[in-house]
């Protein structure tokens, strides 16, 4: 008799060869879990190479999902369950598993040739090295073949269905309905009825195997989470940025122009936006990163919403043109989906090490606004914010996402288009009898007017040479230059009055403040939550506005005995905060190409907490 066991949170990882369809299986599992009301969070991990040698460890592709009956903030640290489609997948993931974890292996693939590719001398299924884990050997390949023997598909097509067999098994194990996936398969393979049929058969067979094989003594239920009422869908950070920018285009009535050059992990923004032609969105796949931002600046000059997106190396290439946007004071949003650097680094791995590049990576005193989303769904909000700031203050804004946000997904509460915040934009108009001054400033924001070609009477010449204050004419006067440098700096500084005050989660003062920015949000919030439940005075403040900082940040930092700032870099925000507020911000810095784990952060906070007020913290 199979028992039903209730769990509050489960993390599973699908893992196999790049060609095994693990991303697809993981995505289906995520969507189905969300559909039945769990809070979910997912993280794909795939090799930088499109097709590393089949069956090799570098060719392993994984997809991790965490689902729970409560609010969760991360895809989980360690998988409770690993599905390993071949020996390489086992080898690549075993070190991440806690003792006692469940491992489901595709035993058909544990033959000599595959074992050799994964550098196993002896099969790990036979040498006792998996003692301490609950291992289930399931002949997925052969059962899938038998299931599809009568379908008339080629053997290659049959093999490609085995991810659905594995998925079906996992659906049984965790009590998920198969209907949503069956329906999506039908939609996806609409034209190839035979393929749709085969994938559906494989899914059902996997599910039936779980039910009948008597291999598993229990299966699990994770009840729906108590999320805020509304309509939800799953969204990745990159999609959320695309939708946020599309939304801005709709609410401002300005056409969106996206100039970009393909780069991992930002390319999906280009893919997404290129679908939205019916909204008048113009996407331009430029010849290089420089042309991408150049075209965007040209479009912004023409009165469009100028958006360009890239990752670290591309952002470096855009530096000079970004300085041009600073000098010409045009509204522009530059998305940098950060990845591990320097140079080409690890393209598919996440990092937060471009903050200082965003702040200072240009010649001269060249201030720009910088904002950073905290979660995949928050990418929508911060894309809207980035444009709001750019348009209101006539400045380039850098939106710092990263690989983890870009590919990770979580439920997004879908807004109604009609309820989106208004953003009013006015292009300048000529006033009779007045000479147009392109660098005259709004007294409050210091923004200059946005005068677009085609407007009679406002003909003017922008340029990258220093501007005379007010008139915008070329000026080499030193005193004027000093004034303009200060004006450009002050214009950015005043944005602080136009962003929401920094919020603190937990007590407003106390022993430890955990600070963070960007994609570390989930791990930090979960770890702080655990400490607070255990009665410790730990609070969390997560920065989404990095330049300028929210006006109340300095006061907040002063109210805690310890300020602790984990970053996936060597202390870039800590450097800025120390310089700005003279506060002894302690860093915790690991750049291993992956997000922080909750346990890791929990333990670090614990050590810091116990040691406080002693200053000896690693």
């Amino acid at each position: 008799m199979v028992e039903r066991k209730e769990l509050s949170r489960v993390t599973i990882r699908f893992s196999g060869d790049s060609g095994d369809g693990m991303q697809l299986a993981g995505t289906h599992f995520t969507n189905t879990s969300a559909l039945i009301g769990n809070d979910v969070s997912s993280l794909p991990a795939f090799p930088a190479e499109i097709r590393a040698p089949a069956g090799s460890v570098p060719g392993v592709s994984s997809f991790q999902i965490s689902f729970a009956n409560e609010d969760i903030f991360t895809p989980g640290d360690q998988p409770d369950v690993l599905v390993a489609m071949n020996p390489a997948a086992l080898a690549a993931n075993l070190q991440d598993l806690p003792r006692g974890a469940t491992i489901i292996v595709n035993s058909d693939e544990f033959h000599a040739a595959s074992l050799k590719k994964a550098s196993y001398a002896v099969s790990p299924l036979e040498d006792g090295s998996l003692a301490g884990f609950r291992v289930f050997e399931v002949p997925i390949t052969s059962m899938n073949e038998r299931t599809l023997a009568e379908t008339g598909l080629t053997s290659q097509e049959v093999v490609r269905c085995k991810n659905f067999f594995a998925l079906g098994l996992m659906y049984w194990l965790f009590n998920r309905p198969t209907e949503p996936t069956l329906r999506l398969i039908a939609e996806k393979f609409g034209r190839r009825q035979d393929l749709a049929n085969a994938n559906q058969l494989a899914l059902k067979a996997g599910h039936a195997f779980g039910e009948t094989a008597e291999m598993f003594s229990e299966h699990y239920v994770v009840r729906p989470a108590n999320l805020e009422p509304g309509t939800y869908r799953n969204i990745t950070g990159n999609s959320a940025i695309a939708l946020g920018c599309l939304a801005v285009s709709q609410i401002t009535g300005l056409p969106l122009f996206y100039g970009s050059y393909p780069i991992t992990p930002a390319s999906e923004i280009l893919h997404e936006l290129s679908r939205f032609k019916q909204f008048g969105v113009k996407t331009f796949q430029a010849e290089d990163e420089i042309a991408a931002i150049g075209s965007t600046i040209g479009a912004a000059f023409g009165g469009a919403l100028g958006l360009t997106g890239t990752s670290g190396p591309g952002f470096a290439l855009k530096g000079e043109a970004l300085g041009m946007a600073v000098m010409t004071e045009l509204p522009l949003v530059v998305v940098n989906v950060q990845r591990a650097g320097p140079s080409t680094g690890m393209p598919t791995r996440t990092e937060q090490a471009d903050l200082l590049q965003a702040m200072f990576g240009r010649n001269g005193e060249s201030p720009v606004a910088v904002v950073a989303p905290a979660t995949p769904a928050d990418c929508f909000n911060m894309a809207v914010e980035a444009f709001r700031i750019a348009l209101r203050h006539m400045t380039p804004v850098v939106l710092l996402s990263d690989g983890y946000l870009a590919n990770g997904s979580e439920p997004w509460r879908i807004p109604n288009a009609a309820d989106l915040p208004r953003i009013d934009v006015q292009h300048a108009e000529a006033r009779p009898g007045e000479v147009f001054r392109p660098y005259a400033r709004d007294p409050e924001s210091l923004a200059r007017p946005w005068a677009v070609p085609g407007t009679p009477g406002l003909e003017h010449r922008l340029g990258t040479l220093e501007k005379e204050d007010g008139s915008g004419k070329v000026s080499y006067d030193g005193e004027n230059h000093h004034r303009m440098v200060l004006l450009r700096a002050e214009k950015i500084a005043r944005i602080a009055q136009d962003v929401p005050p920094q919020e603190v989660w937990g007590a407003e003062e106390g022993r430890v403040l955990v600070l963070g920015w960007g994609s570390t949000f989930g791990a930090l919030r979960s770890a702080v939550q655990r400490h607070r439940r255990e009665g410790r005075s730990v609070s969390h403040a997560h920065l989404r506005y990095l330049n300028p900082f929210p006006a109340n940040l300095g006061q907040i930092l002063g109210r805690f005995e310890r300020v602790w700032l984990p970053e996936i870099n060597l202390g870039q925000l800590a450097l800025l905060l120390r310089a700005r507020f003279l506060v002894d911000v302690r860093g915790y810095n690991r750049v291993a190409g992956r997000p922080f784990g909750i346990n890791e952060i929990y333990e670090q906070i614990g050590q810091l907490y116990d040691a406080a007020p002693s200053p000896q913290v690693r």
Partner: protein
Amino acid sequence: MSTTAVKLTRKDMVSDQEVRWCPGCGDYAILSQIQRALPELGIPRENIVFVSGIGCSSRLPYYMSTYGFHSIHGRAPTLASGLKMARPDLHVWVITGDGDGLSIGANHLLHAMRRNVDLKIILFNNQIYGLTKGQYSPTSEFGKKTKSSPYGNIDHPIRPLSVALAAEATFVARTIDRDTKHMQQVLLRAARHHGTAFVEVYQNCVIFNDGAFDEFADKAWRTERTVLLEHGQPLVFGAQRDKAIRASGVRPEVVRLDDPALRREELLVHDEQREDPTLAMMLDRMTSPEFPVPLGVFRSVQRPVYDELMEQQIRQARLRQPPDLDAIFREGDSWEIKREG
């Protein structure tokens, strides 16, 4: 592009900025011809934009009373392309030089031309870096001694028109600063071309490369050493119009028209509308002193225009699927969470 006819004169095109090129610079003539040509087009001033990069030539937008953008080195085609894509109603010019357009910005120039964005690109070729005070440029001749090549330049020069033709630019022409009438005609034809127009202007730098084009462009022998291209006409040249070009295959040769052995049908007749750029490429390879240097329109063909194709896709997409933000938000699987109780 707006076609509202407006009556403007050269004066209407002049900005309030003092022109600051060296006295005698060829740039003055080009500026003046652009200012004369524009009113002919009947386009309102506010619908014209001049975009430039960096260098002596790139100061030109400051001197025009239209909209303008003096950008960064080599990148003018990128700004102009983005502007034209966002605003197909504007008449957009790119002003560049041999260093700006063919060295640091060569890549962008190529791609703007192969896309056929509706831009008018004027490349001032003086075969030298002027603004940085006299280094060799990508069009400087082999062996040239300059500040950065005291032992002689060992870079092989690039041919601007061959680059444009290789990119299959739909309009490719060459003119020279000291023949203002010819320049005016070429500029007008470029302005009226539908798609990317690329014009190379031989421009004399009086300070760092004075007389670079004298060998064929000096008034005393210009008719002898240049040939004006005219569509459908043989390439006849010479003060007495007594010489012409004959081509066997793609090998040109100079022939005398009074040669009794010459048959008229052997003469090369200029065809700027040829889809295949091979012949235009051959013309670009005709250099002094062996050949007269061709001036005029090398190629003028029609191909779909990039910014219009972009607009077309948008119109078609709108017909198929009206914009509905809520529908896009709800794409894929969505689910409802209801308030409990």
